[in-house]
């Protein structure tokens, strides 16, 4: 043994160590992927019980329509969120205009509005006797053509307004770290700012934009509430029809499998198209960090107007509509229990945010350090699929195996210790709920962390090692400060997502863990939309406070 060890040059020894460490990380990645793949296994298992009659029916009468609808919705939402998120992200990150700092945070707020709430508020605003038409009648006379937000247009509109913050947040981070340097390069080569934006800034931000748009896409694909409000049938509609209408949970799982497959294809296609190019940013070097573009004249007010109108449409208007609905019911519905609902929501969201962010970080590192590297990339892809599941299907996909595992453990305990052995109850505990959150939201935490981790170059690692920092010290003193923005982004995204999450919480929550979101369900399940406005507003309000606090802190550091 010694002889071979002696024969190794230091480089060989280091390479060996790295390889061994890489295998360890690959194992971590695979383990994480296995946990998050539990619902996928349930889906795969479901294909052993194919109901051919039902599938025949679906294929003829339902799938062609919903597949086309889903495609249009996906294209619309991806285009819409990319347009709004990229444009606003760039404006806020690179340009200087009145109220920029306010909008930099305010434009994130629509994220806290659940899609179905946004949709309902929009329908309320554009209803025949709603405020918009009353206004139109004032200006255009009583025979103004009734116009209604509905169908595809309504779905894309509402989903874009609640989902663009995913793209915005990641795009803003990407553009912030690019600074104005990319524009200056273009300008020094004779390209206008506009052309520089399209040929330099945008391509450089591509991994971030793609990650944001993918999150928006997966959320849109998994959405059921918003499409239901606009009565637009998508793939999830077919899933719930098979399950709730025809009592076939197997078919629902199988349909989800098809949906997941589509997402996998999109992800692979995007990565293929991206090729092997590197997207590290242009370093903005030295003391003369490029300053933001200071917009002048009418341009600056145009920027304020753009940001302002999105903020108004996506947040102010729906908030006002919700307040108008909630006010009359305040006396009847608002009571001390709301403190409990809010606390439950906060506790769940906070624990889940911490947990999922930690797992996301772990996954990001596993992806980065895995040897062979291809294995790392594959695990990352698989481990983040949970986000594409419709919530209820995911809940079943987690709950059923956990219950089975509990049974298994109990059988084992009984075998080992006899009937007197204690019983483990996993279902109906926070453990199961948090597990489901982790599986569902890992993608949300992983995206910003993985893209931020790309910023840490090999040479930076080596420089830190050279100064004697390794392992946890390296993580704490070098990586975490650099990853700070990514960690915050991940935590905030997960926090807000859990705050507004409904189907998983609804099915898996333990007794007494009613949240603001389940409160919304209590009202909407019997069609009492106006009474649902109060808990919906509470979600927005309670969810926003930490978001604003956290973000204003990052803003200050970046200013």
């Amino acid at each position, binding site marked *: 043994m010694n002889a071979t060890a002696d024969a190794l040059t230091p480089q060989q020894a280091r390479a060996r160590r790295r390889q061994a460490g890489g295998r360890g990380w690959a194992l971590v990645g695979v383990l994480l992927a296995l946990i998050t793949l539990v619902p996928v296994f349930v889906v795969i298992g479901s294909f052993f019980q194919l109901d051919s009659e039902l599938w025949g029916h679906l294929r003829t009468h339902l799938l062609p329509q919903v597949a086309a609808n889903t495609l249009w919705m996906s294209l619309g939402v991806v285009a819409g969120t990319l347009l709004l998120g990229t444009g606003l992200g760039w404006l806020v990150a690179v340009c200087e205009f009145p109220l920029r700092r306010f909008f930099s945070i305010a434009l994130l707020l629509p994220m806290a509005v659940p899609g179905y709430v946004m949709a309902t508020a929009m329908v309320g605003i554009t209803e025949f006797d709603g405020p918009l038409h009353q206004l139109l009648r004032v200006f255009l006379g009583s025979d103004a053509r009734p116009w209604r937000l509905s169908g595809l247009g309504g779905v894309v509109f509402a989903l874009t307004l609640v989902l663009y913050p995913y793209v915005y947040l990641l795009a803003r981070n990407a553009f912030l770290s690019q600074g104005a340097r990319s524009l200056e390069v273009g300008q020094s080569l004779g390209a206008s700012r506009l052309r520089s934006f399209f040929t330099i800034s945008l391509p450089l931000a591509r991994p971030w934009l793609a990650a944001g748009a993918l999150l928006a896409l997966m959320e849109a694909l998994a959405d059921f509430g918003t499409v239901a*409000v606009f*009565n637009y049938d998508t793939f999830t509609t077919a899933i719930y029809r098979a399950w709730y209408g025809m009592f076939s*949970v197997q078919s629902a799982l199988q349909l989800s499998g098809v949906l997941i497959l589509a997402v996998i294809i999109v992800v692979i296609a995007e990565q293929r198209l991206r090729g092997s190019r590197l997207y590290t940013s242009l370093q903005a070097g030295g003391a003369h960090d490029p300053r933001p573009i200071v917009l002048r004249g009418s341009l600056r007010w145009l920027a304020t107007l753009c940001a302002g109108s999105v903020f108004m449409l996506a947040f102010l208007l729906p908030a006002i509509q919700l307040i108008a609905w909630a006010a009359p019911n305040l006396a009847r519905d608002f009571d001390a229990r709301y403190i409990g609902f809010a606390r439950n929501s906060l506790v769940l969201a906070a624990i889940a945010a911490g947990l999922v962010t930690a797992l996301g970080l772990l996954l990001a590192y596993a992806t980065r350090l895995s040897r062979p590297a291809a294995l790392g990339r594959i695990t990352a892809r698989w481990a983040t699929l949970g986000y594409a599941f419709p919530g*209820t299907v995911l809940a079943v996909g987690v709950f059923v195996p956990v*219950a089975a595992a509990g049974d298994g453990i109990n059988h084992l305990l009984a075998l080992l210790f006899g009937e007197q052995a204690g019983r483990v*109850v996993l279902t109906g*505990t926070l453990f199961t709920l948090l597990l489901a959150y982790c599986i569902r939201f890992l993608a949300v935490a992983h995206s910003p962390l993985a893209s931020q981790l790309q910023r840490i170059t090999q040479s930076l690692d080596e420089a830190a090692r050279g100064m004697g920092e390794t392992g946890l010290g390296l993580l704490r003193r070098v990586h975490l400060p650099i990853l700070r923005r990514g960690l915050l982004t991940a935590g905030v995204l997960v926090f807000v997502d859990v705050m507004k999450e409904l189907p998983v919480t*609804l099915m898996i929550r333990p007794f007494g863990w009613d949240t603001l979101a389940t409160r919304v*369900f209590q009202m909407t399940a019997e069609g009492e939309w106006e009474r649902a406005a109060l808990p919906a507003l509470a979600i927005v309000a309670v969810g926003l406070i930490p978001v604003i606090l956290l973000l204003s802190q990052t803003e200050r550091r970046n200013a």
Partner: protein
Amino acid sequence: MRHAVLPALLLALLAGCAPAPDDNGERIVVYSSRVEQLIQPIFEAWTRETGVGIDFITADDQPLIQRLQAEGASSPADLLLTVDAGNLWNAAERGLLRPLESEILDSRIPATLRDPAGHWFGLSIRTRTIIYAPDRVDPATLDSYEALAEPQWRGRLCLRTSKKVYNQSLVAMLIEQHGEPRAEEIVRGWVANLATDVLPNDNQVIEAVAAGRCDVGIVNSYYFGRLVAQRPDLNARLFWPNQQAADGTRGSGVHVNVSGAGVTRHAPRAALAQQFIEWLTSPAAQELFAGLNYEYPVNPDVPLDPLVASWGTFSQSQVNVARLGERQAAAVMLMDRAGYR
């Protein structure tokens, strides 16, 4: 550091939040798809009367049933409470409910409103009926669900989406009464008569009728009750269809579904749960249960809410609601074929 904290945290949660609370007083556990504000007052009344507490969670029917099934023998649930018969039928089909023998229940609940095998029992009646705009429709021209498929209603009918179980069980009833081919004809007739794309919920159907976008619609009566309680001058009236057949004999009756309950197969406190269901059919509980939501009590001896009573009396469908669950999948497929979204 992280590696150590994570499992520790998970273990702490696991240990800290394990099984259902079990205080000194007796408690039963209810899984309910009937929402909190429609059950909690009743639960409180029961606890006041008997000292037995109730833990419950609310969620959609199918996830609840799935949860019950997955939990199997470990399930803490004693009672499954739903807002339609179809899901109760499905739960019984999956062997998740236990049959009860109770003279009290058999005597208080009409036979069509409970499972023939005794797995579950209707607790309140939800009628799905016709709504019309009195300024544009003469109620004499209204007759039955089937008649709404006739050409005279072309462009005048509003329907809620077929995604909702209420419409699925209505069509299931039509299949039960007429067979699939005729039922499909009727549904196609409805679709042809639609004034506007199908609407997402019953409220919007009522609003559409009141606002003049259409003249007739099909809704659950309690939605109308809720709206009318807020806006007494609402331009819409209920009509009870299928009261008289063409030959003058008694008609097939108004379509009814039930909100009902069954005791779970593995209920740890089955006897107590049965007592609770029996109590729910007592006049006082019935009045509260139905009255909370302008529904009709299943117990025919119980007085109606004044607003509900003002809609008059009617004869209801004699099809056993269990048959609706059985036919539901077929009904959904039929609506798909007929283009009823």
